[in-house]
């Protein structure tokens, strides 16, 4: 359905045979050259220099015009030209496709059906597109608005002057209706921080139409409440807004729009791509979530190779028995996949898609609040979905990258994972957990290594986990400066061992444990509420052969090897 607009000119000129979409890959780019100084935006050139990438490589060269010309002559309906994949998407009849296969220079012609790309947004009861002004925010909403960034360490970044300055973030979404007039983004327009916009469906610069999902996502990067509270961590960054899919009445989108937007973002110097989208079962099987099957996954991997960090929502299929796992492009290894956390418990939200990716690969990578206050036309509202966790982490990444600007993208990727609250512990619901700004502290002492908080004790056929007395204390509660940063649970088990500043906003620390087999695959994991020091007993026979029992409590992770 998304391709309909692109089809119109072609079908108008060539109405003869029913056309299907095809993906035509060429063999070479012989004779093509590129002037990177003119083709790439200055920011794109700078990004490549910073990351020690060549000014351009063969994937940046244009598609051979003679090859392109032949395809245009034969089909007259080319909808996408991809330099990265040396390919074009076009509409053609089966007979034309057969002719395409015989053209010189054509490596492959694949049928390329149109399929939906779904926003990783969980519509609230009020529906995804509010037709009325949203209700005023409640005190609880205002508290959440502060906590959604405070939990990531917004105060630490702010003190260090890191709010995404000098970073350029591309946001791919279903539309940004109301963004240009919403007071939450007035500060962006005042300083002309919207560097470029493009609607890849209508092929026009106006993106302020379609759905409001993009507006909500952007607000989790740089939106601002009337009381000056920022809803995201990168209000000082620059933004590229790309409309790559449709929602509502025009709900469906295509992968090629995502690819086109990624190439556009590369050319315009994006450092980070935030994409709150994902394909699931309408086109793929869970076992195809291998990062190599879908075009969007391959496009995202290519974007990372160009030096851009791609942050993608894990998806909202966690409570869908027919899917449950992450979609694509979140399945790509080099895509930073973000799951959703409950702001009250800091634990996995039921709807947040689970890992692992196909082949048992670790996904999601990180997690952030999957319930957030967002800007919508006419005001603000509370929304839920991993769509909003993703920009929160993208903003975090912008601040981290600002602090270490020369970090190669995959080194940043690793550092972001290491900043996870659970690191080095990992599970398929939380990834490495909520990233903490303290891990990127520029000045002052680095975060201290966590002290052991528990011990393994083997007795007979059981391995038990006992929390150490010094980690089992519940300190006297101290009033915070603002109630918004107060613990959200009455358990109050925030102890000195938690250490990190974010502990002030966190609820009681639970205990995470898992059983891993000899290959590292997590065969079982749990999160336990801690109400006694003798917290866990695991029969040794339940440990996989050659596997481990891994436990995490209050920042400390340790493993017990199966005997």
């Amino acid at each position, binding site marked *: 359905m998304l391709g309909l607009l692109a089809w119109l000119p072609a079908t108008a000129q060539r109405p003869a045979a029913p056309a299907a979409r095809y993906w035509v890959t060429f063999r070479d780019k012989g004779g093509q050259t590129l002037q990177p100084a003119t083709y790439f935006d200055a920011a794109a050139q700078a990004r490549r220099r910073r990351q020690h990438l060549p000014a351009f490589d063969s994937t940046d060269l244009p598609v051979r015009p003679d090859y392109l010309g032949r395809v245009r002559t034969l089909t007259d309906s080319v909808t996408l030209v991809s330099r990265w994949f040396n390919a074009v998407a076009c509409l053609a009849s089966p007979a034309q496709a057969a002719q395409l296969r015989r053209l010189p220079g054509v490596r492959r012609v694949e*049928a390329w*059906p149109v399929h939906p790309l779904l926003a990783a947004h969980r519509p609230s009861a009020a529906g995804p597109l509010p037709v009325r002004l949203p209700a005023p925010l409640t005190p609880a909403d205002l508290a959440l608005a502060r906590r959604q960034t405070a939990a990531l360490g917004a105060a630490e970044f702010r003190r260090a002057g890191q709010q995404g300055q000098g970073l350029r973030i591309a946001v791919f979404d279903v539309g940004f209706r109301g963004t240009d007039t919403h007071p939450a983004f007035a500060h962006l327009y005042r300083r002309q921080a919207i560097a470029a916009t493009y609607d890849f469906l209508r092929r026009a610069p106006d993106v302020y139409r379609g759905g409001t999902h993009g507006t909500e996502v952007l607000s989790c990067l740089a939106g601002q409440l009337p009381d000056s509270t920022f809803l995201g961590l990168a209000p000082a960054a620059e933004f590229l807004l790309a409309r790559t899919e449709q929602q509502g009445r025009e709900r469906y989108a295509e992968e090629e729009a995502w690819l086109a937007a990624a190439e556009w973002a590369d050319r315009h110097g994006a450092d980070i791509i935030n994409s709150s989208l994902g394909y699931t079962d309408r086109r793929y099987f*869970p076992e195809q979530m291998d990062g190599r099957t879908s075009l969007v996954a391959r496009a995202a991997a290519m974007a990372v190779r160009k030096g851009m960090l791609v942050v993608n929502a894990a998806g909202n299929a966690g409570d869908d028995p*027919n899917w449950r796992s992450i979609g694509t492009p979140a399945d790509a290894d080099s895509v930073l996949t973000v799951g959703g956390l409950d702001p009250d418990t800091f634990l996995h939200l039921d709807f947040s898609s689970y890992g692992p990716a196909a082949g048992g690969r670790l996904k999601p990578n990180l997690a952030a609040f999957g319930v957030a206050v967002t800007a919508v036309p006419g005001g603000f509202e509370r929304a839920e979905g991993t769509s909003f966790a993703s920009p929160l982490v993208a903003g975090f990444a912008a601040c981290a990258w600002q602090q270490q600007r020369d970090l190669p993208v995959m080194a940043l990727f690793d550092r972001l994972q290491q900043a996870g609250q659970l690191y080095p512990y990992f599970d*398929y619901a939380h990834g490495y957990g909520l990233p903490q700004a303290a891990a990127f502290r520029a000045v002052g002492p680095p975060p201290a290594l966590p002290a052991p908080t528990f011990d393994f004790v083997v007795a007979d056929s059981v391995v038990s986990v006992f929390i150490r007395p010094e980690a089992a204390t519940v300190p006297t509660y101290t009033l915070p400066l603002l109630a918004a940063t107060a613990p959200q649970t009455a358990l109050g088990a925030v102890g000195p061992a938690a250490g990190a500043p974010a502990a002030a906003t966190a609820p009681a620390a639970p205990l995470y444990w898992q059983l891993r087999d000899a290959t590292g695959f997590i*065969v*079982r994991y*749990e999160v336990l509420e801690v*109400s006694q020091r003798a917290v866990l*007993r695991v029969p040794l026979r339940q440990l996989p052969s050659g596997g481990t029992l891994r436990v995490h409590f209050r920042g400390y992770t340790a493993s017990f090897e199966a005997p």
Partner: protein
Amino acid sequence: MRHNQPLLRLLALLLLAALPRLASAQRVLLRADPATDTIPGRYGPNRAFYQHLYLGYTAVTGAAAGPGAKLRYPQSAELFAGLRNKWRVTGSTAVGLDARFAYLRYQLQQNSTKQVPNSQLHYRESLNLTQLQLEPFARLSFGRRGNVVGNYLDVSAWGGWALASNHSYEDRPGQGQGTRTLVREVRPAYLRRWNWGLSTRLGAGRYALLARYRLADTFSASAPAAYPELPRWLLGLEVGIF
């Protein structure tokens, strides 16, 4: 009481031993077993095997092969409900077997030319068959897709046995003082109880357009030769329940 202390200790030990062996006394906030819940499924709309219920309506289409058996439309129709079993062969092909109950009604027009099953006129009259049918089919699907039914074309052959058949009519006013009289002639010999034919479906997701062609004759050899063959085509809609 003192002599009971060893017994109490023994009881306490037994209780401890009987405590849950794993994570005792702790509330589980989240639990997952990837070893079992991430195994690629073999069952699903586009997996090796899939099974679902369906129901539908097909209207008898066309006219009888001769005079004397004009039908009323759309009352002349078949309602059916069944179970579909589908086995995937390749990404785009599958085979399957349907089992269904089908209730077929031929509602006869009451006019002066009527000959089936006789020339008597009634307020309402019909020939009814309740059938158990089996239908093996072959499916060709279009386009790459995930674990969804998608768009498809089925071709099939079907056959069935009429578990019940009858000729029913209603007279108004009824006999005697009755306002109406309902008469049901069960298993009339002139109705053939075995039926078979060909069918095709064009579907998208749970909805499908359906055409069935009956190869078997409606009437048995014992039927009067003047009985015209009733319409062979059934056209309608089917809805999958999944």
